[in-house]
């Protein structure tokens, strides 16, 4: 099992959530409004006057074989609109109930 954390501009939110089930992913947890800044490129997402855009965070735990299609989908989505910003991070799940 792997955990995937997707942080993206909130404009992507509906698109990603809509496509999760298409990728055979059922469970997820999301935070509609999170703030932050990318390490290299992209505009900060602070929700302030200067940087009004806001991110959303989606956290999902999936079978190992689901990770690749998910990342592929996300990569395409990011390429579509690079300025918005989308990042996903994957790590191992050691145990769960």
């Amino acid at each position, binding site marked *: 099992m792997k955990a995937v954390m997707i942080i993206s501009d909130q404009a992507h939110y509906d698109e990603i959530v809509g496509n999760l089930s298409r990728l055979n992913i059922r469970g997820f947890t999301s935070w509609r409004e999170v703030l932050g800044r990318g390490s290299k490129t992209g505009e900060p997402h602070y929700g302030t*006057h200067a940087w009004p855009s806001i991110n959303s965070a989606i956290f999902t735990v999936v079978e190992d074989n689901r990770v690749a299609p998910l990342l592929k989908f996300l990569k395409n989505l990011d390429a579509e609109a690079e300025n918005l910003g989308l990042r996903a991070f994957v790590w191992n799940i050691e145990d769960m109930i």
Partner: protein
Amino acid sequence: MKLYETAVKKPVGTSLIFIGLVLIGLIFYFQLPVDLLPDIEMNVVSVMTFYPGAGAEDVETNVTRPLEDLLNTTENLKHIISRSKDGLSLILLEFEYGTNTDNAMNDVRDKLEMSSQFLPEGITDPMLLKFSADMMPVMTLSATADVSTEAMYKILDDQIVNPLNRIPGVGTVSISGAPQREIQVNVTPQKLEAYRISLEQIAQVIAAENVNVPAGNFDIGTQTYMLRLEGEMAESRDFNSLIVGNHQGKPIYLRDVATVIDTVKTRILENYTNGRRSASLVVQKQTGANSVAIAEAVKEQLPGLQKNLPPDIQIEVVTDTSDHIQTSINSLMQAILLALIVVGAVVLFFLGRWRATIIILTTIPISLIGSFIYLYVTGNTINIISLSSLSIAIGMVVDDAIVVLENITTHLERGSRPRQAAIYGTEEVSLSIIASTLTIVAVFLPMTLTTGLAGILFEQLGWMVTIIILLSLLIAMTLTPMMSSYMLRATKDMNVNKFDLWYRRTILPMLDNLDHGYAKLVNWAARKRWQTTGIIAAIFVGGVIICVLTLKTEFIPSADNNQIGMTIEMPTGTRVEIARAQGLKIQKMLREKYPEIEIISFSVGQADEDNLFASMRDNATHLMSYTLRLTKAAERKRSIFEIADEIRRDLSQMPELYRYEVQPGGGMASAMGGSYVDVDIFGHNLATTDRIAADLQAKLSEIKGLRDVTITRKDYRTEYQVNFDREKLALNGLTMSTAAGAIRNRINGLVMSQYREEGDEYDIRVRFDEKYRQSLEDIENILIYNPMGVGVRVRDLGTVIESSSLPQIDRRDRQRIVTVRANIYRRALNEVVEDIQKAINTTQIPPEISVDISGSLEQQQESFGDLTILLIVAVLLVYIVMASQFESLTYPFVIILSVPFAFIGSLLLLTITGIPLSIMAFIGLVMLVGIVVKNGIVLIDYINLNRERGMSIIKAIVDGGRSRLRPVLMTALTTIFGMVPLAIGTGQGSEIWRPLGVSIVGGMTFSTVVTLVLVPALYSIFGSYGVVRKRKKHREKLIDQTNGNNNGKSASNATI
């Protein structure tokens, strides 16, 4: 969920809500009554008291003054104006605008109840009357006739008045100027004396004989019958055979001592239309009725009614208020349509995208039509104020939508999908569009609270614009994102059509060049900030100087309503025949010389005593009042003002006229006609005030731009007085009142009975035949019978002497007043007033007499005072809104500095176009406060944003300037071009709105140009101060720290 999110996610609901709003608005629109102005409650209450037989001065001391003292304490009373005439005291109570007249009426009524104790015997109870705008006639018709003249009253009453009265909304239709039928019994005094019968006896006999009496019911057999005695004369000639007395056993018939004539009343107000004898029919409406609908219904019915009339009676429309209303409304409608097109063109020019343009333009009809719901719900009308509010708002309603759409486009360009772009794009700018809408509301909402005449005029405008702007905000936050999410495409999906290609090839490079050039300018301005500020300050000072030197002011611009009113006087006491001949001569002259005049209608003569309406206006045998109706303003070259001036010149060529007054606009001087100036001379002594008035009249006549300088005090008039000797009266067993009554009956006539025919009643008037009441001897020879039946001649009871008296005494604020009044022609009020003040200063005025200038000036000063307060309130509120948005006191200050430039721009453009500063132009200035700050807000907001993103001041300014130039130009140009149709309007009634349009166009243009340079320069000054301050603080902190470290070190060294 947030509003905009809901709207985007529920497109069906959102669009249907707005479609519903438009439908309801349209339904209400077609039900709204149309009128010229909003329902202005007139603030005047009149108190009329009759004191029969008293002269003007007696009326003044015994009735007017006590009543004035009593009524003076009424709440909210502004002025108390009175007119004491023979037998009549008329007091006009003028209240502050906005006073509830019904409450004031109750107040006055309570006070009048107390008055009965100290008013003299023999007066009638004071009558209270409220003036209202509804009393203004909707239409005046005139009926001309040749052979049917004598029967006109009855014909018109039956055939015209009754059908017209049935039209819904019509209040009353009254006939004036048509001769009314009367049975005259003209007695020969010698014959009466021979038979020893008095005139009163004849009248009593007629009254006693000419009766029908029901005698009760009686039974015959099984039936009950009614018994009636029919004594009334079946025909007027039957009166001849009445037996009025006996002489030596033989009956005396009425025909033996008098002639009975079935004729028309002699002393009446005569009307002439286009040279033919006519009667005028005045149509008044019910309160709240639709003037235009009534006038249309009347005009529709007239041809049908005309058919039933005798062929020689012609009905013509003399005045028709609906005509003016309709054309004014139509020309405003055109202005609105034109504005819509122009605004659309501007938006398309800047955006270059059809779909975006359509989204933005949808805002306009929805918010405008939505405001009709407000009009309907609050019982208002469609009038020039409410329509011009639409015209004013049209350029502003698109602003919010433009900002929203612009930001949504930015999101799209970054790669968002339309739906998300719509939601988040709107969210980001929602606060700033709310703030910029609030600045507009901060200006227009206080307008609804203004007092005085300005408040009444602009209350509706304030509400309308506030509602329209708030509605446009709502649309910008719901419908605009919703439509954008469906109609806009992400940049990558966009199709390119021919228009887009053309736009990219021609317009876009132009706009890019403009951006580039402006960036250079801003760069220079921000770096040479002091130089820039200096140049602009110099422009400001120059502008102020030019404005101060050239500023002209007036009260309300005058409108061409196709009407001219004239009052022409012959010397007092001129017989009506002579005045009539003169009147016809003038009408002939007008007809030949002025082809523009369609209808000339005038009245001459003394109105009936029982005519309540006429007793309030001036009418006398020597007085002629004209109403001229001209062709439509668009169809002639000369305006009513030029024609009126020409007529004045013609009238001055007629030495037989005593004085004349020509009023373009037709009498409604204070409302819409030209401006006028009153010089009020207060003082008790009639001779001194007369002298000063004459003196001032001579001086005023020489002042340029003043016309028709007249003195309101009437001339002394010659009269005959019968001075009875009380001893002689007593000796003969007579009293003053019986003797006076006897004389009155013989000269004026005695009406004791009516002749009935076909349901109508006609007076039977018994008096001396005309040839026996034409000389002093006739009066001296009148025989008065005392209670013993002995006849005594007037000459044995007293003397008849010639004297003169003042027919009318005017008072204002409890002091006698003479007013020298003049109309202003083609000159600004302030210049004229200056000259008049000089004339007053050179006149010798005793200390007990005071001289004031009032008229349009007084109203102007009051309104300007109210508007100045409004202006200050607006500036403060706008500042507060901006300060809370920026959370700063400096930036709003920088922005508000564009307001003075706006004023200068307005005043300069007003000067260039030769329009004086009137209350319309002034209200334009007030509006500018809210409108011009928008440019500054957009600029500073973005510069601030750039700085928060970490740019240096200069870079933030240049970058911000370049990226905000188009939105600023777009919103400014939509506002300016939206106003241009008002400013250049040529349609009828456009004179009123032109100053407003000109003032906004001038102010907005000038301030936009200045703001675009001044704001960057000032920002750079204030911003760098901020940086310098921060650096200084930082340096002090560093120094403190190093000092602290050094001290610490040295201290530790010391301990070691």
